[in-house]
């Protein structure tokens, strides 16, 4: 349980909302007013895929102390591969998420790997 009061939590939400809003708003505003250079568009085709991979790799291979996980993540690795195959074959977001959750549940909670 946290030692902060609800008022602290309220201000935390407000500050986090501001911090979340700034990078969502200003780049969007800037580039709807000006012509985007061609190189920027070409580059942007590689940004989402790099970011999503980075987020996946972080949650599967890196622990909360920023060290490489050497044990306890085998179930997640296998589940991640399974989700990748399901996503590629079916192109269904719901199916990918549900299969991933069930798979990791079996590996982590039942098989303990």
């Amino acid at each position, binding site marked *: 349980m946290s030692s902060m009061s609800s008022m602290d939590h309220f201000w935390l939400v407000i500050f986090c909302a501001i911090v979340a809003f700034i990078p969502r708003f200003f780049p969007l505003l800037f580039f709807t007013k000006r012509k985007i250079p061609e190189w920027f568009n070409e580059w942007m085709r590689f940004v989402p895929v790099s*970011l999503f991979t980075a987020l*996946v790799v972080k949650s599967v291979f890196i622990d909360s102390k*920023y060290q490489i996980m050497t044990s306890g993540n085998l179930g997640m690795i296998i589940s*991640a591969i399974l989700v990748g195959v399901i996503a590629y074959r079916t192109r*269904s977001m719901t199916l990918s998420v549900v299969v991933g959750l069930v798979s*990791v549940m079996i590996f982590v909670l039942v098989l303990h790997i």
Partner: protein
Amino acid sequence: MKKNEPNWLMVLRTVMPLGLSYIPIGLACGVLLHAAGFNHLLTALISVMVFSGGAQFLIASMLTINAPMTTIILMMFFLELRYALLGSSLSRYLKGQPLPFIFAFAFSMNDENYAVNYLKFATDKHWQPKQALLVEHYSLLFWTVSNIIGSLIGSALTINLSVVDFALTALFIYMAIMQTKSRLTILVCALSGVLTISFLVWMKSTLGLVVATLLASFAGYFVERHLLAHKPESHLLYTIHDPTRPLDEEADK
């Protein structure tokens, strides 16, 4: 597609898979925020104002380890910085929209509805900015309601953190696969993975994610430009086959 289908229903159908996958994640997030000491009202507020699964999970887990407020906000800044990249990649589809629209659109944009809208804008010529905003508001509704219900369920449920976190991971895997258009993209993914591990371990901060993303995407851009100019027949530029479509349909694109 049915011809006389009203707009709100058509958009709702587009957003439905996302909305449904938000329910288990939102429920779990509500439970975690409750465990971190958030009341129902605050959980509703953060779901609307921050509207980011990753951010809310991070806030919940940092509150439970009693991290100071400044640290949490700084972490938030680095985590949310990625939206600068997402926002600017959508901007070419939102040209000429008035400021209040851009404001509202930016306010409710997140990874998942960005992916839905980016895919729609890229593949559907008739997709309108107003419909994109509606996608955001539908997903916001699904997310907030799921969070509130999760908060209400609260301590009645015990949920394994690593299992719940994986819902988000599965979502990101799906989105990465959907973005994989050429063989070169696979190479960029691999590079991004290696860079992510290196920079996270070295920098000990989520800023490593930003650095890895920037480097991998620039590498992809420069390699593609080089190949198009010097080796246009390179097998790295081959497109990836979408298994749910017949081959001849893809050739028409």
